[in-house]
């Protein structure tokens, strides 16, 4: 009987339900990416600021994407909108084409997807 009594109560039953919060990028992921690029020690409090900045970044991004697609009289964000956005942000330039950024920043499986198909995509979708 002692064994039975010692049996731990399943945690999930007792735990309060997680509040449905606003969607946000996992703090662990932000932390990992930021410290990877920072290449030097980062204090713990800093990550809170980084998270706040990220939230503001997404707000800005959403506004921009809406502006771009509605300018083209669309309700849907397309690839071209993001390329235009990155051009406006000064990330994509004549000397720094998008595919170089893709090669530099995205893992191989995404690169493979984005680069060859994006090229054939130009033929399929002349609107791009």
């Amino acid at each position, binding site marked *: 009987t002692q064994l039975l009594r010692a049996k731990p109560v399943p945690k999930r039953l007792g735990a309060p339900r997680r509040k449905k919060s606003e*969607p946000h990028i996992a703090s662990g992921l932000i932390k990992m990416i930021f410290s990877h*690029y920072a290449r030097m020690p980062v204090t713990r409090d800093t990550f809170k*600021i980084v998270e706040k900045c990220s939230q503001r970044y997404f707000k800005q991004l959403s*506004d921009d994407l809406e502006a771009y697609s509605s300018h083209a009289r669309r*309700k849907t*964000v397309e690839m071209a909108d993001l390329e235009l956005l990155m051009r406006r942000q000064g990330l994509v330039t004549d000397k720094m084409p998008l595919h170089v950024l893709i090669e530099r920043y995205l893992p191989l499986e995404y690169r493979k997807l*984005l680069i060859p198909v994006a090229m054939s995509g130009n033929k399929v979708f002349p609107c791009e």
Partner: protein
Amino acid sequence: GRRRRMKRTAPRSTLRKIIKQHKPALRLAANADLLYESFLIFYFFPLLKVHLNFLLFLHRLAEEARTSAFENKSKIIKPEHTIAAAKVIKHFKY
């Protein structure tokens, strides 16, 4: 070296949810009737580019924070360096 490699999968559904939260009417190219290839281009790729943009944003923020830390002769990035960095890049505002 021994440092753990950065996890690099894009949190696509989270990205979609975030944009949806800000702009409920805005859609990120979604049309399930399309052929597989077109489906990928319209549905999957814009989100990958959002992810790419987010990485570039964090890279720029980290670089600026690093610069700010160096300027203040700090060997560690503190919140104030990041706040200064955010002011410099203005969240990619133009």
